[in-house]
């Protein structure tokens, strides 16, 4: 009898899961349900080149391989709830779908600021529609307030500057991108942004948005008031797991999985992408979510094998799943690349090559061992440091 695998979430993780299920020999039915109306597309350009140019689905859509031509896509309708014991989900339009295997790929959504004030003119950047709405408000002379100094906030700041906007970044931390990169590299990147004309007001938060029916400015925690036509809230993300409530899962931070991406204690249910919290034996074995673009591809590959083994349609892979996290960010003409887990080596950061205000390689160490590398430029050095990280799993 033909079996059905249901993929919850029709973005990168969902697409990669469908591809890997087919590549691993699954011939049954695949149904992917997604609450966005769009076929899977690539998010990173939404804060970078696509935001700077024109935000169209065509510009960011993933190509569909022939192998996934027969996947059924149910788009524009969220899954409202799941009954894992019964093996069924209920969609928001009331439809029920039974499955033999389930792939959780519902990713994240942006956190919103609880700050009082008008809602119009306030944006987030996660979806194509978000980026399109923001693009419409950006332009020469627009006064843009970016709240949050992480990667997405800094990328949007850079893109808005390239579009001729007047840009201010407000964030509670002392230097931008501090948590992943550390103080020195964060400060060096701040200097580059400042050279491009971005203003940083750090060590403070927004206490109120000003304006009548549309944002006209903000008041900060230190009393500063500033004018703004556009606000971008880039203050982190929350997991889309509410639809799994009531199944006894650990949903405290994404979906807790074992090292094979099986949702804890549930045969036939796996998770992929941003929402999967899994232990990586390359590091300390603590289960973590990793919001890097490389992760949907890596996790889908293993999760497909695990799921098919659970369904007795294939053999399990006994090797430990130990992906090397890989991340990049483009800001102005800077290419920032991160390999490994810099955050785990935050107490011992060294410049390995180059200098902080030019092209640089920064190493992050734990117990003296290299656990993460961040490069700005220096493409010729990537292979060497990546190989070093691949070779040396920090035996915890």
């Amino acid at each position: 009898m033909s079996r059905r695998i249901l993929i919850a979430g029709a973005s990168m993780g969902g697409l990669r899961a469908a591809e890997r299920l087919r590549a691993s020999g699954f011939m049954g039915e695949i149904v992917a349900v997604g609450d966005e109306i769009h076929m899977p597309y690539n998010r990173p350009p939404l804060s970078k080149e696509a935001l700077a140019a024109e935000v169209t689905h065509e510009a960011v859509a993933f190509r569909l391989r022939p192998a996934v031509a027969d996947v059924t896509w149910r788009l524009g309708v969220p899954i409202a709830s799941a009954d894992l014991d019964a093996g069924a989900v209920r969609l928001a339009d009331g439809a029920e779908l039974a499955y033999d295997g389930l792939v959780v790929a519902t990713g994240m959504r942006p956190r919103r600021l609880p700050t009082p004030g008008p809602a119009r003119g306030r944006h987030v950047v996660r979806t194509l529609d978000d980026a399109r709405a923001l693009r419409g408000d950006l332009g020469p002379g627009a006064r843009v307030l970016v709240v949050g100094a992480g990667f997405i906030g800094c990328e949007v700041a850079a893109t808005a500057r390239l579009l001729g906007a007047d840009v201010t970044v407000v964030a509670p931390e002392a230097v931008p991108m501090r948590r992943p990169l550390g103080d020195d590299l964060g400060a060096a990147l701040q200097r580059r942004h400042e050279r491009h004309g971005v203003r940083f007001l750090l060590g403070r938060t927004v206490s109120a948005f000003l304006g009548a029916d549309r944002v006209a400015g903000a008041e900060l925690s230190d009393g500063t008031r500033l004018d703004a036509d556009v606000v971008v809230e880039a203050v982190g993300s929350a997991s889309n797991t509410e639809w799994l409530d009531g199944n006894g899962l650990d949903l405290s931070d994404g979906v807790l999985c074992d090292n094979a991406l099986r949702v804890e204690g549930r045969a036939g249910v796996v998770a992929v992408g941003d929402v999967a919290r899994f232990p990586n034996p390359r590091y300390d074995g603590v289960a973590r979510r990793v919001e890097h673009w490389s992760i949907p591809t890596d996790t889908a590959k293993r999760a497909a094998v695990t799921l098919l083994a659970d369904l007795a349609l294939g053999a399990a892979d006994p090797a430990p799943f130990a992906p090397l996290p890989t991340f990049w960010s483009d800001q102005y003409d800077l290419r920032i690349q991160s390999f490994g887990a810099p955050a785990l080596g935050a107490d011992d950061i060294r410049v390995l090559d180059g200098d902080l205000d030019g092209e640089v390689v920064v190493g992050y160490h734990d117990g003296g061992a290299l656990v993460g590398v961040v490069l700005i430029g220096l493409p010729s050095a990537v292979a060497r440091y990546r190989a070093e990280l691949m070779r040396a799993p920090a035996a915890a």
Partner: protein
Amino acid sequence: MKVVVDMDVCKDHGQCVFSAPEVFQINENGRLVYVAESDESLRDAVEEAADVCPLQAITIED
């Protein structure tokens, strides 16, 4: 198997090189060079390279 990289889109990330070093290389100038007519036995590796290209610049035209 015919491999095409849209060189207007490619930003020389070099991610493809780790998946299929037989097909993709970064030259001394930091630019991508690749073998357009590659052996069929490399299809899996090239598909993986296409997956991991941040700019989604790689296509396989059978």
